[in-house]
């Protein structure tokens, strides 16, 4: 849009009749400093860019359809010209208008001051009216030769000399012809120049550019044509400014502002953009409110339906100064504005609803949190006592320490604790509120401790720790949960006198530490493979039926949250299920 540099001629545009309500309507600000123009242009661009695609399409369709007839009541027969609005919006005359602060009369005055000093309009013609020049020239071209020839003939009769008379007659005819041609050429030039200029100006306006006003002397058709053109150009420029202001205003409507403040703002904007004296947006069906009667000499009532989609939200009604005219194109602009306001109000309504829903969800979330906390507390508190007393009992004497019954109580209370924690973890994972810490740990040691805690008597455990000093990074509590679930599964599905093998291997390329847990049970059936990691899934071959069916699901989610993964390895002959839990790994450190 490099052609959008300020054009000094544009500043010569006459202001519209009627009051300028504020700076927003100031048309003559092109001579404002360049940065402001740039800002303004940026604002227009932003406005266009920010509008929603649908709104933009709507705008283009409407703007293109806006005709711009002459609004001067004295000259209503002027030719209507269609303004190519989208092309015209960025025209220079529109920019300073955007730059003007909407509520700054001082800026408006400054702009107007500059306007008076601006270059004068283009002058066309020689100071006489087109008709006078045409008549005069025709007279001279037609009458003068006859008069000359007549004069020569009279002279010839006076001298009665045939020879002289013949020469004179020839000279007179030649002279008259020459004079006639000269006069015709002068007249032609004088007459076509203004026509050519008017043509150029009209073409510019038609192309959506700003055109300087053309001044034509006199009171004839040509002068009226030029005047009409000037008015059309001025009207087009004014509507372009209004459109730009409208776009900027609409782009600034934020649904978060709330319904009422938005409505108030839209009312103020309507006054600013359209030069209304007052404006109200009423929650009223326009069809049910009879239009106010227009009384000459009193402010002119204007109105538009505030719509969003197919629904009418209300009525925008205001008054225009009595001196102002209101044409169809103005009404179209107001309708456009009202529908944009309708969309903004509807958005604000929806936004408010969503806000309220969100607030409710947050409340519900907090209530759920509190509930889970309570459940956790109420379940774990008795378990804590059981566990503490068992521990104390078992440490009281060597016989008690060896008592299998006490050991079972301890194990089962541990199991119960684990399951409660698993349920809580799942709930947190689903709520997305689990934020694991990233601590370093030797994973082999964790595996061994977890295995010991499981106390799976009769199951052979083999661990091959090839971590070579690599440490896993994860939340110790959560890693324990994962390892417990996987090892517990391996025991559960690995058969009564099974064997559980664990291999720890760093995946240096991916920076992961892999823990593969293999049992010697029947493995995972094809049907189970697909749904293995979903919630509440237990293998078909399960024997005991205990467990929540959450182990693999929770483990996988936990590992994913910690930047790792859990996968089921392909089945191998002679081996049972093989799961690999990966955690982010840290290569061995030294002091450095």
């Amino acid at each position, binding site marked *: 849009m490099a052609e959008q540099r300020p054009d000094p001629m544009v500043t010569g545009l006459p202001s519209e009749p009627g009051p300028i309500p504020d700076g927003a309507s100031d048309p003559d600000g092109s001579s404002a400093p360049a940065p402001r123009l740039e800002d303004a242009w940026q604002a227009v661009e932003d406005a266009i860019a920010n509008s929603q695609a649908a709104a933009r399409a709507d705008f283009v369709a409407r703007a293109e359809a806006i005709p711009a007839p002459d609004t001067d009541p004295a000259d209503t027969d002027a030719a209507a010209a269609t303004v190519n609005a989208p092309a015209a919006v960025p025209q220079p005359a529109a920019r300073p208008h955007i730059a003007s602060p909407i509520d700054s009369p001082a800026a408006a005055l400054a702009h107007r001051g500059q306007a008076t000093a601006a270059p004068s309009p283009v002058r066309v013609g020689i100071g006489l009216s087109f008709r006078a020049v045409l008549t005069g020239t025709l007279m001279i071209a037609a009458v003068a030769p006859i008069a000359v020839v007549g004069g020569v003939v009279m002279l010839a009769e006076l001298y009665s000399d045939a020879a002289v008379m013949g020469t004179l007659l020839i000279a007179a005819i030649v002279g008259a012809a020459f004079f006639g041609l000269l006069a015709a050429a002068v007249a032609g030039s004088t007459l076509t120049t203004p026509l050519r200029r008017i043509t150029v100006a009209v073409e510019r306006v038609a192309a959506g550019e700003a055109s300087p006003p053309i001044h034509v002397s006199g009171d004839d058709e040509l002068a009226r044509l030029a005047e009409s053109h000037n008015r059309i150009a001025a009207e087009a420029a004014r509507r372009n400014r209004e459109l730009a202001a409208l776009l900027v205003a609409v782009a600034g409507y934020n649904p978060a502002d709330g319904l009422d403040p938005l409505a108030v703002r839209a009312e103020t904007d309507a006054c600013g953009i359209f030069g209304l004296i007052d404006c109200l947006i009423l929650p009223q069906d326009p069809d049910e409110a009879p239009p106010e009667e227009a009384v000459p000499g009193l402010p002119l009532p204007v109105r538009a339906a505030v719509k969003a989609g197919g629904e009418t939200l209300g009525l925008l009604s205001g008054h225009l100064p009595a001196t102002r005219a209101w044409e169809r194109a103005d009404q179209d602009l107001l309708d456009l504005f009202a529908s944009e306001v309708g969309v903004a109000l509807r958005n604000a309504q929806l936004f408010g609803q969503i806000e309220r829903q969100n607030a409710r969800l947050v409340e519900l979330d907090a209530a759920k949190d509190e509930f889970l906390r309570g459940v956790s507390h109420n379940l774990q*508190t008795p378990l804590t006592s059981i566990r503490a007393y068992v521990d104390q009992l078992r440490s009281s004497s060597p016989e008690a320490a060896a008592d299998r019954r006490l050991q079972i109580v301890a194990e089962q209370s541990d199991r119960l604790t684990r399951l409660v924690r698993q349920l809580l973890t799942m709930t947190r994972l689903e709520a997305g509120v689990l934020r694991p810490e990233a601590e370093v740990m030797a994973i082999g*040691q964790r595996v061994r401790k977890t295995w010991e805690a499981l106390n799976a008597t009769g199951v052979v455990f083999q661990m091959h720790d090839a971590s070579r000093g690599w440490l896993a990074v994860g939340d110790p509590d959560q890693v324990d949960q994962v390892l417990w679930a996987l090892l517990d599964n391996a025991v559960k599905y690995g058969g009564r006198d099974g064997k559980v093998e664990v291999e720890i291997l760093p995946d240096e390329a991916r920076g992961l530490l892999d823990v593969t847990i293999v049992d010697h049970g029947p493995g995972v059936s094809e049907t189970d493979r697909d749904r293995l990691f979903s919630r509440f899934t237990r293998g078909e071959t399960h024997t005991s039926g205990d467990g929540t069916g959450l182990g693999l699901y929770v483990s996988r989610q936990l590992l994913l949250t910690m930047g790792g993964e859990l996968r089921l390895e392909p089945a191998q002959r002679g081996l049972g299920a093989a799961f690999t839990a990966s955690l982010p790994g840290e290569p061995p450190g030294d002091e450095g």
Partner: protein
Amino acid sequence: MSDHRQRRILLVDDDPSLLVVLAEQLSDDGFEVATARDGQEAVRRLEAGWPDLIVLDLMMPRIDGLALAHQIKSGADLPIIVLSAIDTADSKARLLDEVAEDYVTKPYHYPELRARIERVLSRLGDRIPRQSLVLGPNLTLDLRRRAATVAGTEVQLTPTESRLLGALAANLGEVVGTDTLLSRGWAETEEAEPSYVWVSMRRLRQKIEVDPDRPVHLLTARGLGYKLVECRDDG
């Protein structure tokens, strides 16, 4: 276990049966134990004399454990270990960072609880700065919030990282041995190895140094340990 020199612990929990057994366990290990069943009782006990450490349940009827912890901390900088059924993943557990030195979830394993008590008591001498500690234009530590501000950006520290930096900050400019850091950062039951310290220091440098390859705050004293230093030069 005679080397405990009768250090005093106040247990605050609303479950009387737990109070009894835990008090017995701790007494057997040479601690002098007082118990309180709710907040008011806890406050009365505190008025009678300060313990070396408080073990506190976060969820108690009649008084909010968190409020009590704040109340205690506002009176004296007593170390608090929270013993609660609220697990570490709970959003509320985050609130503890400012008031609790450590956190043990219920049901607890007594050896682990005791190891954590030992660890907290062993670093009693460390004066962990309450306010933020400005170590240079590019590093400010805010250990109470487990946070550091590195070149204007806040990074979160893990509990272990925070404890390690606390131990280093308590001896600012001096070398802290790797063994000391091990005992400050990890409980005995975690069987941490020196490589834990090395790797943690490397990770800490990634977090708190602008150029981890050329550290200016967290320096290695080869063969001895690490030190945390101020660096006023922002170049």
